[in-house]
């Protein structure tokens, strides 16, 4: 089924009876050429690009719950390419370019909206840091515009510019940054993979990884054993558990990150605004809700909900930045489980077990990476070579200390990111 304006018109006139399921609900086969564990954004995009770019279609995505039930459906949907360090920079640039062609590629409306992202700064020192970051972005071939105070005011007149603690000095505008509809990204990739023959198997939890003579031979699942010689794991917050099935310990601690949404309002916030000093960021969804969040709760957690202190902190930061937000009523808050690495950057690598590939450690920033990660991880699985835009995400960088990617410059240590 192809989506088009004509099709919408036709369905509208004929009672919308022609829309079918977006993907099949197949029974697991006894064997696949490759198995992807985890049907979040990264698993689905990996399967999609394995089929599309590498012609591997006898593959399955095994998802323990339902498609879109993990972090891919829980995040605050910011899509950007404003990283500073080599390794991250070229990867997120690659990913953003894929986003820009994604809707045509998938024939699916993921509501990618490049509304512009503004990172605010509040001191001369911070301005210097953002000038440097902006230059790095421009050198990477992406876009960055330095705004002074009046420049920010033109875009965001409703901020409190004269806050005593955090007066606004300016901001770094990333015009191609923005948001997308998170569920639609999962659904679009699921549909695209399914159309190319990939089996998407929901309610199928992997409970064991079979290894013989140092090579994978298959998986045990709640729906029976399945044979395969290649396994890609893309289970985000559950990476520790799935790696343990292969006898591995990863440099990952799972933490909870919360987010919030208000009742639907008339359009008021046109951009994505990031107030780093307050650990606060916000955008407005197309439905009208103000979507905002802050930092981790900062203790290891697998509960998909957080605690009160971070809720209060986020609300306070919002009031500090834009007092008008106090008029809005918060509808919901929720949490997602984040796979935090010591340096805050991800891992895309082979493991010491033949045929077991690791994609993990996306921390709180893996949504923007969804197309990029699928494209480079599928390359690694299919060719056993690292993709040219993702050579830095090595698992051994922690052991060797070479190539750590600590964007925040706080140190490569578990409780600092």
């Amino acid at each position: 089924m192809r989506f088009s304006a004509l099709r919408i018109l036709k369905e509208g006139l004929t009672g919308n009876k022609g829309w079918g399921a977006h993907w099949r609900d197949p029974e697991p086969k006894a064997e696949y050429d490759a198995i992807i564990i985890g049907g979040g954004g990264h698993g689905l995009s990996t399967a999609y690009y394995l089929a599309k770019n590498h012609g591997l279609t006898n593959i399955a995505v095994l998802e323990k719950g339902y498609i879109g039930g993990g972090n891919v459906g829980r995040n605050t949907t910011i899509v950007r390419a404003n990283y500073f360090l080599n390794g991250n920079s070229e990867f997120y640039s690659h990913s953003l370019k894929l986003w820009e062609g994604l809707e045509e590629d998938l024939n699916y409306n993921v509501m990618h909206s490049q509304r512009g992202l503004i990172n605010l700064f509040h001191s001369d020192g911070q301005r210097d840091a953002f000038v440097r970051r902006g230059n790095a972005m421009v050198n990477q071939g992406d876009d960055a515009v330095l705004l002074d105070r009046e420049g920010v005011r033109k875009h965001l007149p409703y901020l409190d510019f004269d806050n005593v603690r955090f007066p606004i000095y300016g901001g770094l505008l990333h015009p191609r940054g923005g948001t997308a509809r998170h569920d639609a990204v999962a659904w679009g990739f699921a549909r695209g993979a399914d159309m190319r023959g990939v089996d998407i198997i929901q309610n199928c939890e992997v409970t064991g990884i079979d290894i013989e003579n140092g090579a994978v031979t298959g998986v045990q699942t709640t729906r029976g054993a399945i044979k395969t010689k290649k396994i890609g794991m893309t289970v985000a917050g559950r990476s520790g558990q799935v790696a343990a099935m292969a006898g591995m310990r990863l440099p990952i601690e799972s933490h909870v990150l919360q987010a919030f949404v208000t009742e639907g309002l008339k359009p008021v916030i046109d951009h994505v605004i990031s107030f780093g000093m307050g650990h606060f960021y916000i955008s407005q969804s197309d439905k009208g809700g103000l979507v905002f969040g802050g930092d981790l709760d900062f203790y290891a957690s697998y509960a998909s909900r957080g605690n009160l202190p971070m809720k209060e902190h986020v609300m306070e930061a919002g009031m500090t930045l834009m007092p008008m937000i106090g008029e809005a009523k918060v509808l919901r808050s929720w949490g997602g489980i984040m796979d935090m690495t010591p340096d805050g950057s991800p891992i895309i690598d082979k493991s010491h077990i033949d045929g077991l590939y690791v994609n993990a450690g996306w921390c709180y920033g893996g949504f923007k990476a969804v197309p990029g990660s699928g494209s480079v991880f599928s390359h690694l699985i299919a060719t056993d070579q690292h993709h040219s835009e993702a050579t830095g995400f090595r698992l051994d960088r922690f052991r060797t200390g070479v190539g750590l990617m600590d964007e925040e410059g706080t140190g490569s240590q578990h409780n600092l990111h």
Partner: protein
Amino acid sequence: MRLKCPVCGERDRREFYYVGDAVALARPDPDAGEAAWDDYVHNRDNPAGVTRDLWQHEAGCAAWIVVTRNTVSHEILETALAADVKRAMS
């Protein structure tokens, strides 16, 4: 979430600084080798369930505390002074 400081009693989570897995109590020898140090500094069991981690009662008595708690339910099962735990280990 409230944690029970063995010295001060039950206090709000805000008073505590979180360090992470209580591996710090079992620091390897300086010459234990690369693998032991990599495990100590980076690799984690990361359990979904009962874990033992290290907190400091920063805004209280400043004691280091080993907290046994459930990462799925946020239930606090036991707290003990890190000094006592360390002494019992040797």
